[in-house]
């Protein structure tokens, strides 16, 4: 619950910031696997992931920003996951339009059991909770294009790689790592 309140507080904070700086809608989709980008670790059997949220720039040059996202990662075998994520990003622009990004943040992930869970009550077996909440620390690298402007607004397509470290999944693998590749777009409607 406290994580939800924190998320709502952040949304409120973004609203006040948006009065001064640009707010963009951020939607993305991609694939995710249990993986660390190190030698010997193979990226196999990736599963789909979608994310949606808002990106609030924190300065006039729009090189600093805070992204708040909700994401859903599907995993056929190990359980789906619903994520709330806040990501602070540094996004300098090089070569006029190329937006590079590095970000780090924190989040909360409800990780569902892929099958029914069972719990011993002391006298009988009952259905357990459907999910476990784990803390997520995402690290993101991205590359985008800043400069597509239409009569509807501004579009900033990007690709991103996000390494997620999840604390509290299983003590055998702590933190549980995920690698996510995303293709997305940030969109700001034209102010009339």
């Amino acid at each position, binding site marked *: 619950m406290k994580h939800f309140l924190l998320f709502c507080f952040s949304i409120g904070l973004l609203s006040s910031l948006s009065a001064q700086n640009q707010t963009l809608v951020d939607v993305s989709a991609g694939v995710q696997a249990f993986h*660390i980008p190190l030698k010997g670790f*193979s990226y196999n059997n990736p599963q789909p992931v979608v994310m949606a949220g808002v990106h609030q720039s924190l300065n006039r040059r729009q090189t600093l920003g805070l992204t708040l996202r*909700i994401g*859903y990662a599907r995993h056929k075998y190990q*359980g789906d996951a619903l994520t709330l994520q806040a990501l602070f990003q540094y996004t300098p622009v090089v070569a006029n339009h190329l937006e590079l990004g590095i970000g780090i943040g924190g989040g909360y992930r409800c990780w569902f*059991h892929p*099958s029914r869970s069972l719990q011993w009550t002391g006298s009988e077996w009952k259905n357990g909770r*459907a999910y476990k909440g784990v803390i997520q620390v995402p690290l993101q690298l991205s590359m985008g294009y800043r400069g597509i402007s239409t009569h509807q607004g501004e579009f900033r397509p990007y690709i991103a790689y996000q390494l997620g470290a999840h604390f*509290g999944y299983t003590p055998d*693998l702590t933190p549980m790592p995920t690698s996510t590749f995303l293709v997305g777009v940030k969109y700001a409607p034209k102010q009339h």
Partner: protein
Amino acid sequence: MKNQLIGFIFLVITTTACQKNLYDDTVANIPGTLAVNAAHPMKDSLTAIVNRHVAKGVPGIQVMVKSPAGWYVVNGGYARIEDKTPMQDNMVAWLYSLTKTYTAALTMKLKERRLVALDESITTYLPADITQNLLNSEKITVRMLLNHSSGFPNFTSLPEFQLRQFNNPFDQQPLLEQLKTAYHKKPRFEPGTDYLYSNTNYLLLQLIIEKLSGKSYGQFLKEEILQPLALTKTYFGLTNQQIRSLGFPNYYFERYNNGQLENITQWNNAIGKSIEGYGGIAANGTDAIQFLEALNAGKVVNQSSLNEMRTWIKGKESTVPDYGLGLEYFEYNKGVPTYGHEGDNIGATTQLIYVPASDTYLFISINAGRQIFGQYLFRTTDAKIDLCRFVSKLN
């Protein structure tokens, strides 16, 4: 936008609320009971220990004992929780690392035929395209594989192996692909100077056995151990259809270290089939006990080989001996040696011990896995320790 976001969240919650049973399986009914001594002196205590641990949340326990007073079997809890299917006398279960005792015995048989020398480097028996990828391999002997003093890291404990398990539960790799996980990994210590339990050692032993015998591991096992001892309820290389018909229990995994179990039977079985000579034998407990009994009686290997198998080594940090050749040393009651082997997979834990002082054998099969620091590590380990301590207690 706000409405779309709410709709998205609603869609997510409704989809995830419908949980399915992804990995569970049926449990075949195998009728009949084993002939036991109904007045066995351990009967009441074993039953009480099993019931106590079932009451603490262990899903299912099967215990078999053979002592001078005869056989006794205790089944507690469920083979399948969801429909309250009980554990059955005649069921078959994965033995996991108890398999290593069979693999060591097969290696000793090759030694007796002078096909392998235990103190020869493994580079003599394994192809260069394998050994050149394993650091220190020229200094490592067959004996060091057998008693886990090679220093090879345990590849199944490496995160790259475990993450692959999560990504591909039904797509288990063949042995040589599994072995690649251990390639170029730094040895944990200089060969022969310490003890580290490592599945890498027994995977390599299977390759040596197959090369020197000219037969598959399964065929050699059948010809050298299963057929001569008439172990008709011991299996290797099972198909899914066979697994369904032999009365295997369902298996449970504590994914999140929160005391909740998930039925992961088919995932567990997929692993069981893939771990071959380092964990892939399945059997009824009576067959497992009869194998160890035959080994002790010199019916599998000769006395000299048996003595070597029971020559214990001790790790630098151990207070009691750790391991012989394919046999683990245990001391549940101070000054009372026992030996046999433990086995583990994500959904189960097993144990087979022999207590020489009382000429007693104990087989334990529990259908919940032991995750590091998980609640079920303690629940299942406590059950095993209580049973082993009781059976090895001398009156």
